[in-house]
């Protein structure tokens, strides 16, 4: 019954795909991308919002994001909300590229910048900032390890590895390859093996997570039979992935005194469907879904091993199926498509395909040309994540405002016509509390000339950790927003937040107490906490606080109130 309900949708999806797909790589798109011409020039400063979209796609170049969205959603030219203002953009892009809000000084500087290319220049600046690699290594850690406890690999070394890889501009495909091939014997590459080692080489868990996290296709329900509801998810797909890992085993390295990965040269995957009354057993060679089967090369018996497994001897086959997986997984477009979808979801609050691990024909992308555009961008940039982030952040879709426009449909957010109100991730929220209170600036001030990212970030991370712990998902699960009582109790009452509120050299409260003019104090507060200027009401509220006998307590409560508000918890 479910199937029939889905059928019309899937036909539409396929039809759309065919229509859109044929025009994607045409020399110039027929539909003119939307430019921000309906924006009233006198209220908002002119800014080059949709620059990449205005450049027609060259032959072989991916269609620009906004042009792709215009194909998927033709009403965008008439119904899209106006671009967001500069400060909203500043807050958004700071959270997305460096993981926290801008300081008041940064906000004031951006307000003063009159260059029409200020937004794209800011994007470039943030991408070049070392803070970017620090923050995005947290993002990738949460994506791929899902807050599992460290068992065999030091979590810090793993984070260092991710950060160094991002800072070096290592392609994400190379990163994934290293994670699948590292065997843990070399201290230099051992951190990359954490993906497998800290899942204890539970092969079913590893296969499930490779399918979810790298292919965006959760094959778990196809382990014992073809997926009951999803035609594309076959039992043979699951076992094709399993075959790459079947021969790998955990080995206690006698010298390192650590678990490492070893591999045998034999062992075949066989499976039966629990739904098959005849119980036919099928063999499966390795292969990624949709790719060819990869039979073993024929090797003479004495040629099977570089080092044959024995007591205290780690097995190393001449033909490693696990290494083969690293190649096969990165050969097609599936990895890029999945990553493109996850980057989009991270920045826009929802995947083009949603849920993120349900890429299949019956769950078509909301904007197929957009997903193609993002995928091709990543592929052409050789999996350089910064190239993808740069294109997304420069798009009109990313810079859309949050004010509704007359005639917009109810699902305007899903149709990318208006900015989605999205919650901060646990990391973003943790950082936000430390940045908004000026705690990070105070730390920097205390460190003086020694305030390098290497010195500041570990402090920020340690101080953000209790916030993250109360907001994050259970280990082994992806984060999802949940408003929970114990989170509110923690933020309202626990001393961890309260300690950052009193004055300290360089922090917000110190500046507020020094400011006599209520209007200026209000702007200082609202720029620090919400990255916006204060309203007339808010200036009055501030004036009232400054008149109280116990000014510091009044300011402390006002600051806490803003930190506990929805405007702080969400990105508008």
């Amino acid at each position, binding site marked *: 019954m*479910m199937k029939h309900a889905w059928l019309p949708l899937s036909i539409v999806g396929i039809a759309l795909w065919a229509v859109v797909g044929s025009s994607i790589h045409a020399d110039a798109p027929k539909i003119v991308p939307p430019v921000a011409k309906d924006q009233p020039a006198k209220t908002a400063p002119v800014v080059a919002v949709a620059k990449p979209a205005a450049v027609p796609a060259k032959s072989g170049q991916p269609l620009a994001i906004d042009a792709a969205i215009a194909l998927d959603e033709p009403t965008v030219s008439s119904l899209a909300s106006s671009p967001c203002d500069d400060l909203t953009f500043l807050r958004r892009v700071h959270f997305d590229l460096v993981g926290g809000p801008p300081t008041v000084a940064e906000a004031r500087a951006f307000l003063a910048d009159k260059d029409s290319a200020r937004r794209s220049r800011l994007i470039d600046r943030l991408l070049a900032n070392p803070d970017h690699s620090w923050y995005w290594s947290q993002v990738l850690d949460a994506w791929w390890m899902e807050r599992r406890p460290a068992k065999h690999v030091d979590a810090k070394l793993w984070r260092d590895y991710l950060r160094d890889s991002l800072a070096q501009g290592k392609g994400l495909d190379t990163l994934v390859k290293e994670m699948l091939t590292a065997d843990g014997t070399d201290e230099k590459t051992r951190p990359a093996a954490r993906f497998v080692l800290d899942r204890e080489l539970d092969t079913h868990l590893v296969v499930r997570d490779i399918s979810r996290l790298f292919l965006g296709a959760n094959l778990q329900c196809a*382990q014992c039979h073809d997926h009951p509801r999803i035609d594309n998810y076959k039992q043979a797909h699951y076992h094709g992935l399993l075959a790459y890992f079947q021969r790998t085993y955990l080995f206690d390295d006698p010298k390192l005194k650590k678990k490492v990965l070893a591999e045998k040269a034999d062992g075949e995957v066989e499976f039966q469907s629990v739904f098959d009354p005849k119980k036919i057993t099928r063999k499966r060679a390795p292969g990624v879904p949709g790719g060819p089967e990869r039979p073993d090369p024929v090797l003479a018996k004495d040629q099977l091993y570089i080092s044959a497994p024995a007591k205290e001897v780690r097995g190393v086959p001449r033909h490693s199926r696990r290494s083969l997986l690293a190649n096969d997984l990165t050969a097609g477009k599936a990895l890029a498509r999945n990553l493109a979808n996850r980057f989009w979801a991270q920045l826009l609050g929802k995947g083009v395909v949603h849920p993120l691990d349900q890429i299949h024909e019956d769950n078509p992308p909301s904007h197929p040309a957009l997903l193609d555009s993002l995928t091709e961008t990543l592929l052409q940039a050789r999996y350089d994540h910064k190239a993808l982030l740069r294109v997304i952040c420069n798009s009109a879709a990313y810079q859309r405002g949050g*004010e509704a426009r007359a005639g917009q449909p109810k699902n305007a957010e899903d149709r990318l016509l208006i900015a989605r109100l999205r919650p901060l991730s646990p990391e973003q929220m943790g950082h936000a509390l430390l940045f908004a209170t000026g705690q990070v600036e105070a730390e920097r001030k205390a460190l003086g000339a020694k305030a390098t990212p290497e010195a500041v970030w570990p402090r920020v991370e340690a101080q953000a950790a209790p916030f993250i712990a109360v907001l994050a998902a259970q280990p082994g699960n992806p984060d999802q927003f949940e408003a*929970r009582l*114990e989170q509110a109790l923690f933020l309202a*009452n626990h001393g961890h937040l309260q300690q950052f509120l009193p004055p300290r050299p360089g922090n917000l409260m110190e500046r507020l107490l020094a400011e006599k003019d209520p209007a200026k104090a209000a702007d200082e507060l609202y720029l620090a906490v919400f990255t916006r200027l204060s309203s007339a009401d808010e200036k009055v*509220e501030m004036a009232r606080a400054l008149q109280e006998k116990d000014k510091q307590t009044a300011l402390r*409560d006002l600051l806490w109130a803003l930190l506990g508000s*929805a405007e702080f*918890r969400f990105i508008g």
Partner: protein
Amino acid sequence: MRPEIARYACNSPEHTLNRRSMLGVLGGGLATATSAGSLLANPLARQHKRVLMVFLSGGVSQLETWDPKPGAPTGGPFRAIPTSAPGVHICELLPYTASQMHRLALVRGVNTAEDDHGKGSHIIHTGRRQEPSLEYPHLGSVAAKFVADADNPIPGYLNVVPGGGGGSNAADAAFLGPRYGSVTISDGRAPANIDRPVDPLREQQRHDLRRAADQRFMARRKSAQTEAYTQTYDQALQLMQKKALFDLTSEPAKLTESYGTHDFGRHCVLARRLLEGGAPFVKISHTNYDTHHENFDFHIEQLAEFDKPFATLIEDLHQRGLLSTTLVMVVSEFGRTPNINRNYGRDHWSKAWSVALGGCGIRGGSFCGKTNAQGTEVVDRQVHGGHLFATYLKALGLDPAKKYYVDQRPIPMVDPTGSPIGEVLS
């Protein structure tokens, strides 16, 4: 043992009045009410359903509790005694409980076919065997979602545990979502961070400022998520005002004496206070019944500690008018072997054991299911975890045939091979 008049721990009507009960009170007999206590307690008690799970950890022996076999080679040394329910005999180790049997029901044909502690516990909490592909929500999470009054700030699934540790276990809620997960009440202490860091006046002021900020923002931008988020702070405030629920010192001395001052006794008092305060699901545990050695000595000791507080709790709930709306279950991972091993112990036995039920939706004094003379097999009306789960839902007025939809996938609320046990339902 008539307890002192039911009253709310905080002694303040504002703290317990929520919008729904306010309507109930106003619609009901305001004029006839004589005290704030009776005014509040009864309308609430009539309106809201709740669940009390008593978990006898380790696997209590059915032969030393609900299904004695005196005289049989497997029966052990204890007698069976008559109870307040005609025709129902239970083990002599439960004399106080025997006087409450007219309010309880027995299911004596339980076969959960699972002798592993963890897996047996899973069946008892979820009504299902563990499946690799899908986690199912605990009964507590189901109650938190479907029985709880949305306005009540008390977390929906409270798990009172004897030892240390705390926090919440969001995983218990599975696909229902983390907010329905269990909150651990460690040794009966109030949840973490329930104390306000500032004085009450400032507390109010800073939350007023927060609400004002939210109003300004949500006039421009809002979503279901922003509403849920802002609401949690108000729930937190309400829960903080209910902190006194966790303070047992206001209970009359005579009553606490009746419950007993040991951990289980105190947890029984706390359970009653929480249920009375509107908690939809409270689990208390008594440990340890895993009696591979010296089964009989251990059961004498353990059940002596269990019997009086439990019976007091049933009586107390009844006297406060809460029992008819509180579904009670006394469960374990499994029962114990009829065979007595050479250490005078009994081992794990899931093939033929018993569960006691009571309160909301349950017919007091009823019983169902029968084991053979030696207690080795169920000979009449065999049921498994799915039947028990279906019975719980039915007793609470929920439809066990309903389905959840998880990513559009239909998931029956109850294992479809289990149906409600009509014989014990009222």
